[in-house]
């Protein structure tokens, strides 16, 4: 896919344990998609193309978590051939929903699904990419927001820092002019401790935020847990609220453990 003129940066998209939803967000940029190859050489993107170009790659997008011995090796190889490595989504940045195995016995999990567990090769844990290799940028969300994904790509092309705000969903919610579901309806909401990026879509639909973008920077989970108990949340509900798509993000992991200890 080489064109005459200036060399276009080479993009690779890699998949580990995941649902494909984050790389699909790239294909969901319907208005920008066909212009993409004019600026970027889509060198390795198996979901979209059987043509592959050898590395090294200027930028690698990595979706998914590490859950098998083979993948723990593969991510090192991906790092080796990538000048910049950006992880996208809750699986790649926090281990994803499959990270719930980290709170259980994986052998028991496997035997609950498969009649012959010995055929299945899997690790005891689901871990984020940053547990295995150095990561240049993490884009949060389950799934990532496609406009934020485009911003990250453009930023790396321009060799600048992506403009991705670190504040909470609460800020987006106020900007959007939503009525606070917690104050007005008494609905438990993770918005105060959750990373912005979704556009506060859950409160806009009369529902509490369920934390799919993971923790914001320095979240005050202890305070929020107190408020949620005040609204009638029982300990198991509180633990489950923190233990979902970003269960292994350190701040949510700690908040879930604290909720359990306060029993």
């Amino acid at each position: 896919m080489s064109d005459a003129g200036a060399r276009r940066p080479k993009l690779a998209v890699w998949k580990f344990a995941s649902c494909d939803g984050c790389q699909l967000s790239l294909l969901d940029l319907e208005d920008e998609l066909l212009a993409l190859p004019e600026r970027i050489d889509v060198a390795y993107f198996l979901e979209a193309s059987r043509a592959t170009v050898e590395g090294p790659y200027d930028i690698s997008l990595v979706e998914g978590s590490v859950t098998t011995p083979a993948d723990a090796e593969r991510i090192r190889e991906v790092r080796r051939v990538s000048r910049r490595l950006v992880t996208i989504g809750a699986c790649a940045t926090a281990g994803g929903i499959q990270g719930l195995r980290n709170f259980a016995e994986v052998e028991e999990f496997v035997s609950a699904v498969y009649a012959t567990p010995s055929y299945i090769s899997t690790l005891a844990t689901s871990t984020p990419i940053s547990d295995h290799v150095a990561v240049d940028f993490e884009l949060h969300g389950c799934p990532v927001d496609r406009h934020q994904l485009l911003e990250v790509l453009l930023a790396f092309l321009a060799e600048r820092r992506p403009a991705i705000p670190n504040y909470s969903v609460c800020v987006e919610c106020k900007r959007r002019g939503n009525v606070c579901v917690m104050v007005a309806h008494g609905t438990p909401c993770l918005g105060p401790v959750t990373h912005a990026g979704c556009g506060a879509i859950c409160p806009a639909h009369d529902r509490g935020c369920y934390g799919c973008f993971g923790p914001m920077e320095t979240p005050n989970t202890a305070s929020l847990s107190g408020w949620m108990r005040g609204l009638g949340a029982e300990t198991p509900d509180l633990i489950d609220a923190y233990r979902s798509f970003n269960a292994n993000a350190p701040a949510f992991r700690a908040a879930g453990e604290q909720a359990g200890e306060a029993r």
Partner: protein
Amino acid sequence: MSTDNSTRRIETSYLARVEGEGAMHVRLRGEEVEAVELRIFEPPRLFEALLRGRDLGEAPDITARICGICPVAYQTSACQAMEDALGIEVEGPLRTLRRLIYCGEWVESHCLHLYMLHAPDFLGYESGFAMARDHREVVERGLRAKKAGNRLIETVGGRAVHPINVRVGGFYKAPTRRALEELRPELERCREEALQTVRWTAALEFPELERDYELVCLRSERGDEYPIDRGGIVSSRGIDVAPAEFDATFEEEQVPHSTALHARVRGRGAYLTGPLARFNLNRERLSPLAVEAAAEAGIGAGCRNPFRSIVVRAVEILYAFDEALRLIDAYEEPDAPAVEAEPRAAVGHGVSEAPRGLLYHRYEIDADGRIVTARIVPPTSQNQRSIEEDLREFVAANTALPDEDLRHRCEQTIRNYDPCISCSTHFLKLEVERL
């Protein structure tokens, strides 16, 4: 890939343009096909285990994450299984919305597959990007339709990938009539263009392959409804059962070469689910516009060539636009966005037609509304056996093809199914080995 006098082995380590990861292995001894294995090595994510102990209300959000391409299918089957357990029915405008958001997903998923993943095979391109260099207008039309499907999902569901507005009993907030009305001009335009897409796919060249599948899909209790969001399970060989009979009718077994379980009809064998099954068993229930387009495309009397599934998908895209417009016309804003119910200990079953086929969920819940056991049977694991049989038949008839051509055709044979390997709740590389 290697060739010598006695052995021939073709290998593709990662199968491209499918969702998820898989490989194929074919072993030939002379002209004899010894083995065909579709290997799915998508890392197991163990959803059925991790769902245990969670609140029943979380099932739609958690199971959506099985597949980013068809989350609405997972949400719908999960909601309906829970509603079955709770003894509630979702009817009227809430059911209209459920079918409407599902139409959006059919459009989005089918357009992605048709234009970006499947059509390049027929025209000799490596990708939709490469195809767009020579067929820009065609690909742009596809992306426009896909975008309209995504806008429909966003309007009803709040987000295109993993919608947030779907819940057991209905929705968190019902969209206004006006919000849906605003979609109409674009949906009408895309319906017109979908007709062109049917004609365009019908003019492609198709390899010969007619298979006598047992076709399995849903059939609505209403005679004028093409199966999308609900129905009983029927087959071309006489199956006609309620969703609760799924396990009594089909069985799954584990094979060493795949992390996906293989399904079959009990006492028989492979079956096919997805667009070909839906179309052949329900085509008289399509809208008049879609019936006419199918007839014009030469499949009015049915279609058993898996390569022609691209034409059937084009017809289903047209139908989904037509049906979405009809549903928007019929929509009245509901009094409440959801039917509420108290938890009770029970078992529930839910089925719906994911873009790539039948999707079955079964949950056992306790008196507090916590999930005790979960079972999820995605369409691709149901189709694995049929994919392998297609490959076996296709390879046997085409052993004279050079390795590279055979490999490409085998990949295409797999892509006919739009396999979604991420749906590997329990769940491609291509090798042809010639001995």
